[in-house]
């Protein structure tokens, strides 16, 4: 069972949701998204109400970086490449998004618009797909060239983590910096140990569980506010793209923006996760419980995801 939640800091419900769904036993906790504050997990464990251990992925990588400068340098070089690639993607994205938005807002000529809008959206999706492929290529090249998982400094931590996860019943992934979080989840091979375990994740943690991660903010202080596809996530929740803090970060009352996001991320369902929202996905990939979470639709509306309980997310349903 996988449980995705909205932000937990001010009104945590993680403990009550876990109990409600019969999750007990030991927890392995990931707070790497909190970066230097990773170890400040007292409130999290108090809210969770389960015994467990913090995997300390952020701290572990700092230690690897200190003891294996070669791996650290190669890792940093890859991160620099990814940043440079993202800047190029941004430049291209600005143009295709402006075109798609303009056509969505246009009213005539009616008989021609539909095909042009579809083509403009295809261009956005093609660029997003291209970017994800390029990101994946950079990761693959890094792994081929550096073979990070053969470095003893990293191997030792991966082995320790594997041992901890054997004894864990549930993996809990908190939010924070989604890039750092995803990076550490990958470096330490967390996804390899998840079959048979429950996962509870929120905010950036929920984003990382999805197949695709979208970064978004409709009203940033700088720039046009074009959402970006960032990377592939762990792929634990097919068909959903998690949008935490959606009510604050998105202009959900603007149909053009909602429609753009929905069409762009189709066939996945962009799904809002605000405070106290809950989405529970069963082992068969079907939605078991939904509270609060909503889905952005291609027609510009935002509708309760609860309407899809019993279905597998994704596609047109």
């Amino acid at each position, binding site marked *: 069972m996988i449980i995705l939640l909205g932000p937990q*800091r001010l009104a945590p419900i993680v403990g009550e949701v876990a109990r409600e769904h019969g999750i007990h036993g030991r927890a392995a906790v990931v707070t790497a998204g909190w970066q*230097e504050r990773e170890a400040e997990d007292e409130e999290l464990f108090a809210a969770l109400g389960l015994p467990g251990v913090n995997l300390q992925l952020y701290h572990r990588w700092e230690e690897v970086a200190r003891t294996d400068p070669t791996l650290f340098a190669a890792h940093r070089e890859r991160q620099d490449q990814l940043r440079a690639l993202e800047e190029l993607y941004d430049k291209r994205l600005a143009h295709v998004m402006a075109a798609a938005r303009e056509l969505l807002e246009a009213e005539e000529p009616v008989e021609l618009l539909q095909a042009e809008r579809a083509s403009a959206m295809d261009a956005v999706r093609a660029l997003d797909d291209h970017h994800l492929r390029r990101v994946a290529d950079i990761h693959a090249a890094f792994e081929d060239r550096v073979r990070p998982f053969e470095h003893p400094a990293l191997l030792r931590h991966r082995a320790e983590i594997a041992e901890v996860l054997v004894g864990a019943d549930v993996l809990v992934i908190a*939010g924070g910096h*989604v890039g750092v979080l995803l990076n550490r989840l990958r470096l330490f091979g967390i996804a390899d140990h998840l079959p048979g375990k429950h996962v509870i994740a929120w905010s950036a943690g929920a984003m990382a569980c999805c197949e695709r991660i979208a970064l978004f903010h409709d009203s940033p*202080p700088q720039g046009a506010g074009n959402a970006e596809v960032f990377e592939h996530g762990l792929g634990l929740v097919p068909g959903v793209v998690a949008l935490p803090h959606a009510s604050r970060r998105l202009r959900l009352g603007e149909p053009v923006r909602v429609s753009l996001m929905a069409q762009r991320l189709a066939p996945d369902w962009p799904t809002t996760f605000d405070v106290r929202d809950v989405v529970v996905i069963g082992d068969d990939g079907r939605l078991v419980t939904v509270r609060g979470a909503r889905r952005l639709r291609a027609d510009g509306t935002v509708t309760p995801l609860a309407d899809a309980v019993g279905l597998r997310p994704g596609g047109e349903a």
Partner: protein
Amino acid sequence: MSRALRVLLAGGRPRKAQIDAFLEAHEFPLVEGNHVTFIWRGQAEAVRLRHFVYALQTEVNFQRVAGTDLWHCGLDLPRGSRIEYKIDVVRGGKHHWIRDPLNSRMATDPFGANSVCACDGYVVPDWTVPDAEARAGTLEEHWLEPTPFGEARKVTVYLPARFRQSRRYPLLVVHDGGDYMRFAALQTVLDNLIHRGEVQPLIVALSHPGDRLVEYPDDPRHTSFVAETLLPFMEARYPLWPDAAARVLMGASFGGVASLSVAWRYPGVFGGLLLQSGSFAFTDIGQHQRGPAFDPVVRFVNAFRENPGKPATRAYLSCGQYESLIYENRSMVPFLQGIGIETKFSESRDGHNWENWRDRLQEGLSWLFPGPLWMLYE
């Protein structure tokens, strides 16, 4: 004249009870589209609006509704305008500048408080008011001595929430730091913008001037104080990034002049400038007309324009369209760009006041200190 007032006056001279009901039923001033109607009630020889909008006639006479104690005057203001004003009530030949008793909205500054008229389209930014979600930073006070002024000077230091000695932070030096905190909600703004990831966590040194009109326009004691006393103190005491790109000078009005003059006299030390309604008066020929306080300002800005060098690499400037300084600030933009400074400029329909400067902080700070907004989902 506003529709509401026309309705009141449509039946001829309104009775006292009708005026009472009119005042009870509306918020003042009356804003209808681009037109604002100010109302005052009482006995006076004359009543005038003092609105501090540079481009308009500085005083506008109220008209008395014949046979009543109700006065009104109108002003056309573009959408999104925000102005500060007082009402000048003349009684017995004496002028009494008062805040609008019918309007509870006001803004404070070092000289007192003004009434505020916000037109359609102006909204107080949500990041300027306390947010329960935002963690609060902390303040520390230090007295620095010796200083080039021959006396100890106080500096207040803002540390971001969850400050850690093991991290490194960029530095913002704020002129008139106390005023920014009191009148422009700077601490709330910093807490909110850092919490939201719009601005990276930073350390702020808030300076407190002696006589700012003397010290700010390129007084070598002040420039030396900032670069050779304050900066070394901050670097010794706090974990700061050791390069110019991570140091920004900020100030409003004469504080903008002070920021530029520090950067000009110490090129390569400060990478960024955040200059709000800078008093950048200059002359191409002849004398300026701004009074003796501006003499050292004009000397400095003229010298800077003559020999600018490259005092910083990035500059954010803002200015209100209703300030006399708008022209100088506009002219500064191509000048700074021409000497290779990446420059961003923002205009607002507002005047030379602290809430205007407050409202531009998000844009300026997020440009100079971009935070991890796009990556942060807590």
